[in-house]
Every structure is written in structure tokens, then in C-alpha cells.
């Protein structure tokens, strides 16, 4: 059973394509999407390259989420 990181991250780069730690299937996410199933080993370099940013749990809705930026769509 895959472990999930409780932390959420917002895609801040041009997009992301990764194997989900939930089921191993690849996910494609675009700028603004919020994700919580990125492989843990990739998080540090993704943060470093500003491809993702940590979502502040106390402020789930940010100013740039116009019109209700729903969390990610279904995992398909």
C-alpha cells in the first residue's frame, strides 16, 4: 500500500507529469493544480526548481485561485 504525504503542493511551473504514489499511474497536472501524491524523492528538487510550491494549510484558498480553484480533478 502506497504511503501518501499529507502535504499538498501547488504546481507553479508549466506542468507536471509523474507516477502517483497512490497507484503508480502517471498523472498530468497543469499550473495551479494542487497535488498530494508526488513521489517524495522528487519533492526537494521540484521545490528547488520552483516547479511546485507548498500549500499553506491555514490558507487553502489563495488570492490567485480565481473563481474557486478546485483541487485536482479525479485521478482518472
Amino acid at each position: 500500500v502506497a504511503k501518501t504525504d499529507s502535504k499538498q503542493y501547488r504546481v507553479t511551473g508549466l506542468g507536471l507529469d509523474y507516477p502517483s504514489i497512490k497507484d503508480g499511474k502517471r498523472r498530468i497536472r497543469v499550473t495551479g493544480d494542487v497535488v498530494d501524491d508526488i513521489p517524495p524523492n522528487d519533492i526537494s528538487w521540484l521545490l528547488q526548481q520552483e516547479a511546485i510550491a507548498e500549500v499553506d494549510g491555514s490558507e487553502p484558498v489563495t488570492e490567485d485561485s480565481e473563481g474557486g480553484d478546485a483541487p485536482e480533478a479525479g485521478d482518472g
Partner: protein
Amino acid sequence: MPFMHGSKAKAYLNGRDVSPYLRSIGASSELDTASVDVMGGTYKQSVTGLLGANVNMQGYIDGASGASDEIFGPAGAFQSTNYAYLIYAPQGNVEGSFGYGYAAWPGGYEMTTDVGDAGSFTWSATSDVGLERGRLVHAYEAEGAGGTNPSVSTGFDDGAASTLGGSAYLSVGASAASLAVTLSSSTATNGTYTTFATFTTTSAAYTQQRLVIAPTTINQFVRCVWTGTGTFAVLFHRN
């Protein structure tokens, strides 16, 4: 990759495969040097200046609609007010193989018709971006659905990451429908890929785009992802 015969070379000019009209392609590059000889020295000394690149093609005249004369001559690239975008693949249209990209100004179109020979032409152009060597991350071929090259779980291994950006060429052929192409990179072949270049979505046939990729980290493994359909080639060059 082994040696290959010159007849396998391919060239895509403003989205068109022009190879069927050509008998030879000459691509040259040069680096300006300036003498800085001073008294007391033993050997001539120089400093380097700007890089340049030229391309010269020789082929046969075909006056049909959309054929060589319309592509290379005054009706096409020759008198265009835009760059002639060219992807040149010396060892053929092979996915993952190397190629060169040009954003060039045509400098000459010369036709020759001789009583003893086939009508032929020469076409030359000078690139404003030097000779950009890269990899064909998508060969010039038709796609009927979205996909990923080299595959959904791998990438082309460029050996190392880079931080200086680069450029990318998209050459769209006879058809395209909502064709959207991106390039992404990862630290591992089956890892997490981040998009670093996005071409403008297009449905226009025979078009070409060149993206300048600003200095940024491009990881070791690179792949091409697209949605929509069309015939197209993609060349990626690292600075």
C-alpha cells in the same frame, strides 16, 4: 549511431519535407576571429568573435503547386519577411537522432536550365541563430492521437542536466488539429517530469515555430508530449 549514406538526410523547411526535391544539402558554420598580434610574440594570436551558420541546398525544379519552386522561390521562403525555419537531419528522420535548427534569411535562389541536364536550383540562407544542434524528440510523422515520446514512462537521456536554456523547433506538416506540444524533463527516466517549453497550439498546416528557452534547469531526461493530431517534427537544442 553508425555511419549513414548522405541520401538518408532530411530537411524540413517551414513545415514541408523538402528532401524529395534535393540532391544535396551543405551546412557550414564559422567562428569569427580577429588578430591580436603584438610585438615580441612568436606565434600569431587571435580572439574569437561571433558564430555564424549557412545552409546551401541544391535540387531540381518542380513547378507544381506546393512543390520546390513555390517552396524555395519568390512565392515561398525566398521573399518572406519572416525567418525560414529549417530542421536539418543529416542522418535521417530518426526519433532520438541528432539534427540542426536554423532561423535563417534566404540569401539566394538560382535556377539553371541547361539543354543537356535536368532543370535545377540552388538555394542558400544565413542563420541568425548559428547552428543549433539538438535531438529529434519527435520525428516528422503523423500522429492520430495525443502521446508521449519516447514513451509514457521513459525519456531521452541527454547525459546530464543543464541550466543555460536552449531552443526548440516545431515543424508542422500537411495537417494539424489542435496540436499542442510540450517538452518536459526529469532527473530519472521514469520519474517526475516538469514542463519547460510549450509551443503555441496550432491547427495550421505547413507552419513552424521556434521557442527560445530562457536559462533554467533542464534535467537529464527529456521527452515530448502532445495532444491533438497532426504531422510534425520537434527538435530540441540545449545551450
